């Protein structure tokens, strides 16, 4: 991003990018508070919640109560509509807060009232003010119930239409990182810490000009149109074998389902930050296993040197999976156009404020449609081949039926015990 705006506006002068982080709702405030203590320079933290009481407890440097008239500072009660209304009420305030920001990060826990309802509003306003909007959101734990999941999904859909990029952290995946004795508090703390980690990683990626630079457009090209399935993970290591260690950590990362996500993702953003002594062979060692994991994926790769990282190696990885049921192709095309124009003209960023959600998707020529369709089918075919993995050595027990004709019904071998096929556990 940095070099982008620079190049566009004042090629000779280094412009400081203004980053603003908004924590929305209970989870968002906690995450923002957590991150604000991690100490990013040049980043403004802001916590906004409808619940004045919980906002009081937040450690973020700046905070304000959303929709004081609507909710009387008592919270949105898990109703996204109320959360949205509260944000709409304070829209002027939000607008003024977004003033001058180049990049706006939104941290929110989807599924509740404030985060789910207000995040899309914030995203919209921030975009209208000409900022690039990146949302980092958590999805509820499964035990929180189907209703919250549903709310989270619909909130995510809305957020996707308003934000430039959305990255999800499904809390359910945290379970793999927790042990039996982890308390609820710790669990949510880890969730917050991960959000903050992600924020930190992305912030570093965008603000530090690297040897091989990664900018916001790169980030967008990975996450765009695939938001529902964007995953991130960070890993860090020190010592002689740090390159190997980092790639090992990434491949075993629970948020990536132990590397499973990499197999299925079709674009990947890898940003490496290391000390001045980082060697080329280290980068190679790190990237090689990743390449092997996702041969067909589009990999965007960045590397930066930071003296503060002496002896350390830190990697931020964002993986995206295309889903068939994603937004209509017309919309994607429009987004792409927007981004293209953004690359060259600062005014384009301003133009953006006339906002894409108002305008209907442009008419596509037959040619273009066909092109998009073809692109899609190719992608799906590609995906299929990606799914094709090495078959595990599976000894199917058939006992006395070993040598007889298999009894196949609907593609199932009925000779294999039913409880195995249905995956019923016998503890």
């Amino acid at each position, binding site marked *: 991003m940095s070099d982008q705006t620079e190049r566009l506006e004042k090629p000779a002068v280094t412009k400081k990018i203004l980053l603003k982080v908004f924590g929305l709702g209970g989870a968002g405030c906690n995450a923002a508070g957590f991150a604000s203590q991690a100490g990013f320079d040049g980043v403004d933290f802001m916590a906004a919640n409808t619940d004045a009481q919980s906002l009081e407890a937040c450690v973020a440097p700046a905070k304000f109560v959303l929709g004081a008239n609507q909710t009387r500072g008592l919270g949105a009660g898990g109703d996204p509509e109320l959360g949205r209304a509260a944000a709409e009420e304070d829209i002027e305030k939000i607008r003024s807060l977004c003033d001058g920001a180049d990049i706006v990060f939104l941290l929110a826990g989807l599924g509740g009232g404030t985060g789910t309802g207000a995040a899309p509003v914030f995203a919209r306003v921030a975009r209208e003010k000409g900022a690039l909007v990146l949302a980092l959101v958590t999805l509820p734990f499964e035990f929180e119930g189907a209703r919250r999941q549903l709310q989270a999904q619909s909130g995510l859909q809305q957020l996707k239409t308003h934000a430039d990029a959305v990255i999800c952290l499904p809390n359910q995946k945290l379970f793999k990182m927790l042990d039996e004795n982890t308390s609820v508090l710790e669990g949510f703390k880890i969730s917050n810490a991960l959000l903050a980690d992600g924020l930190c990683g992305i912030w570093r990626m965008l603000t530090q000009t690297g040897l091989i630079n990664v900018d916001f457009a790169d980030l967008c090209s990975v996450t765009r149109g695939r938001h529902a399935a964007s995953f991130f993970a960070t890993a860090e290591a020190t010592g002689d074998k740090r390159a190997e260690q980092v790639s090992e950590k990434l491949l075993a990362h629970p948020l990536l389902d132990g590397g499973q996500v990499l197999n299925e993702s079709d674009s990947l953003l890898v940003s490496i930050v290391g000390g001045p002594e980082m060697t080329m062979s280290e980068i190679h060692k790190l990237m090689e296993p990743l390449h092997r994991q996702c041969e067909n994926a589009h990999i965007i790769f960045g590397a930066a040197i930071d003296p503060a990282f002496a002896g350390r190696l830190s990697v931020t990885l964002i993986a995206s999976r295309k889903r068939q049921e994603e937004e209509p192709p017309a919309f994607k095309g429009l987004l792409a156009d927007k981004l293209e124009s953004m690359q060259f003209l600062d005014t384009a960023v301003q133009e953006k404020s006339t906002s894409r959600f108002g305008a209907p998707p442009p008419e596509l020529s037959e040619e273009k449609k066909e092109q998009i369709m073809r692109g899609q089918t190719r992608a799906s075919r590609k995906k299929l081949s990606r799914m094709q993995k090495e078959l595990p050595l599976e000894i199917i027990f058939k006992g006395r*039926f070993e040598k007889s004709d298999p*009894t196949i019904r609907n593609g199932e071998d009925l000779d294999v*015990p039913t*409880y195995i096929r249905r995956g019923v556990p016998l503890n």
Partner: protein
Amino acid sequence: MFDSSSIIVGLEIGTSKICAVVGEINATNGLNIIGLGQARSRGVRKGEIADAALASEDVRNAIVEAEQMANAEIRSVYLGVTGNHVRGFNNHGVHPVVSADREITIEDTQDVVKNAKAINLPIDNTVVHAIRQLFQVDSQLGIQNPIGMYGAKVEVDVHVVHGHVDRLKNSIAVVRGLQLEVEEIVFTGLASALALLSNEQKELGSLVIDVGAGATEYVVYSDGIIKHTGVLAVGGDHISNDLAYGLKVPLKRAELLKIEHGGSFVDESVKGKTISSDGELGLPSKIINLEHLRRIMSLRLEETFELIETELSSLGLLDRMRAGVFICGGGARIPGIQILAGNIFQMPAFLGKTNSISGLKSALDQPEFATAIGLAKFGSLQQKRRRVVNLADGIRKTITEIFTRK
């Protein structure tokens, strides 16, 4: 000794046992069961011959036992066949009425049945049964006998049961190897249905499920005729096998556990209970979790019934079985199986009784013997048909019979 020509023998070469039933036709043209012989089967898997030598030996034992009990010499048998290769389907035949006054004649009915029997089978398959169903004259459905009626077009459905020719030959060869004649081969599911169902039940509509050791056969009767037949090569052996694997016990012990502690449901009484199967037969003692045992069994049984249910519901037959489900075969021994079937098919389910046979000793009224008894009954019906031909009275009826059934 009885005159061997008057006795009828049904022979079932099953996966777990081989059963021969000897019957004779009594004065009232009914069937009396006079002998039964059985032997443990070793050469059969999933209802099909896997080891001809062993199977032949076992068949011999069963036949000898039956001969001794009936005090008769067995020369020919009605042989039951089953296996995954046996399939049933309905075929439709149409024939335009040619005579000037559009009266339907015997020739018309013959032709329409011939048309219906002209079917395309896979190249290696042969017809086991072709069972005529009801006629249709123009748009009038459900006509038993259209001769003498008027119409432009006669139609008929034929239910065809067919199987792979070589596999059918395998079991025939085993019997022939013992110098026995095979009168006819009969689909075992059909035989079980014959043994179990009364005419009324056939009329109301019933489903007969024969849960054997190697295969499960099912037959649907509705409006007095066979609507559907099928085989699923899954049975009691699969349950034992699942148990052996799931509980990590030898197959033999799994079989014993199934018989002693088996059930169709995981009910409260077994939750968290264990049994220690003692180390007889040189097997070491082991703690078995009863809940797991039941879960493995119930899952398998549920699945088997569900597969049948799905098939029947896709054919739209579920609503037409008002008498309910009748279960026979060794699987009917599993406690609660009729309740499970009732739950899955959503209709009353019973353990089948072979009550359609007159003069049957109650000792023989066991679910395992239903098939063999049904085979004997099938034989008696065939013989009765032949005998009727010879009788002077009722010639008209006979002629109709011959021509329509042929």
